[in-house]
């Protein structure tokens, strides 16, 4: 399969990338590691006229401790995040999940920023950033702005990043408590049929997010409020799919996904309550 014809420009800096986005508007797409965009282009589900390659902006590949937060450059590849000492120490759930994305070849190319900006509800990393209560930093013509992860994912493959903006950094709070990532799939390297992330946050709350349970990556709101009201893990997990409309596809029906969400959230909450992580 061969993508439709496009023009290609390589950005030398964030400013250069933003200038190219400004110049080409809706016709342009940013290319990072290419492991979400190129498969869509090969299937011709995406046919951008202009690819702006930001894959060489090494200045956006970093994992840094900044006070109580960890800052991750948008072009940090999954493999680099997986083995980052800072991530493993301060946000082990993020390093762990980075090591569960796709397979080694995918992790050598794919980037956290690319995965999050793609906004795929079936991707693992957006759910982790949601469960960590993270913030997404975008740069654009008006300068930098910060978007809470709860306001970032706006629809299927749609985010709050404007066409002339670029995601440059992901910020998450360090965690000290338990965490759990439960991924259910049929094939080793595949996307999750359903996934669940639970994190014991510093403020004492437990945050829970779900993979592939709706049009966007999302927080399990009913479970979180049940926990806040004193529910046991089993009680809170029983409402995990409340209000959600997961997709039906060749891998799983909507009903099956709802069932999986309850089972995986229960396992994740039991893990967290036992202090695992």
């Amino acid at each position: 399969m061969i993508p439709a014809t496009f023009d290609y420009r390589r950005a030398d800096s964030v400013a250069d990338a933003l200038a190219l986005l400004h110049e080409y508007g809706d016709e342009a797409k940013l290319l990072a590691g290419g492991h979400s965009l190129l498969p869509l282009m090969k299937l011709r589900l995406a046919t951008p006229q202009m690819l702006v390659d930001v894959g060489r902006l090494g200045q956006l590949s970093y994992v840094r401790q900044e006070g109580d937060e960890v800052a991750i450059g948008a072009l940090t590849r999954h493999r680099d995040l997986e083995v980052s000492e800072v991530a493993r120490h301060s946000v082990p759930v993020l390093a762990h999940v980075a090591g569960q994305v796709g397979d080694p070849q995918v992790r050598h190319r794919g980037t956290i920023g690319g995965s999050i900006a793609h906004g795929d509800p079936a991707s693992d990393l957006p759910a982790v950033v949601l469960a960590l209560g993270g913030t997404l930093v975008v740069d654009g013509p008006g300068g930098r702005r910060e978007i809470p992860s709860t306001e970032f994912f706006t629809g299927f493959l749609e985010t709050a990043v404007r066409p002339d903006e670029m995601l440059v950094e992901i910020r998450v709070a360090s965690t000290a408590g338990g965490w759990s990532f439960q991924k259910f799939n049929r094939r080793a390297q595949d996307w999750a049929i359903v996934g669940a992330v639970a994190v014991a946050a510093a403020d004492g709350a437990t945050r829970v997010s779900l993979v592939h349970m709706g049009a966007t990556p999302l927080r399990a709101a009913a479970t979180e409020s049940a926990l806040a009201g004193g529910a046991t893990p089993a009680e809170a997990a029983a409402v995990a799919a409340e209000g959600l409309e997961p997709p039906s596809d060749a891998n799983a029906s909507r009903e099956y996904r709802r069932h999986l969400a309850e089972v995986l959230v229960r396992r994740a909450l039991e893990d967290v309550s036992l202090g695992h992580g």
Partner: protein
Amino acid sequence: MRVGMTVNGKAHEQEVEPRLLLVHYLRDVLGLTGTNIGCDTTSCGACTVLLDGVSVKSCTVLAVQADGASVTTIEGLAPGPDQLHPVQQAFREHHGLQCGYCTPGMVMAATSLLAEHPHPTEQQVREGLEGNLCRCTGYHNIVKAVLAAAGGEVPKEPVA
């Protein structure tokens, strides 16, 4: 667009369309047909090559993204024409192939895996090769071969 890269130690420079995939560049432009195309959807790993030393699926990399990079394909792995790379040698000795279609990709993925984990456990080998499919399902001997190439103990009968 003009791209230059070193493939198997030899410098190449060509004018290519931006949409040309790395695997097509290697096979059709350079004539290096050892790298196979299997699924063409980033799943099977048959097209795995080393890009600056790490395994990638060359069906999901544009040739322009590899501009300036160093690429190693199955043709460039052996140290000389009459020699095999240790991973190739181990695949041969442990019968790590049946039809052979997945083999170039398996060997490249295993080489990258051993660079990251020089002494892997059997579990690490199995998980480390999750991006490569063998439709003959000859995984047991592939795992044996990779463990042998690492100089580790090779199970007589695989555990899993």
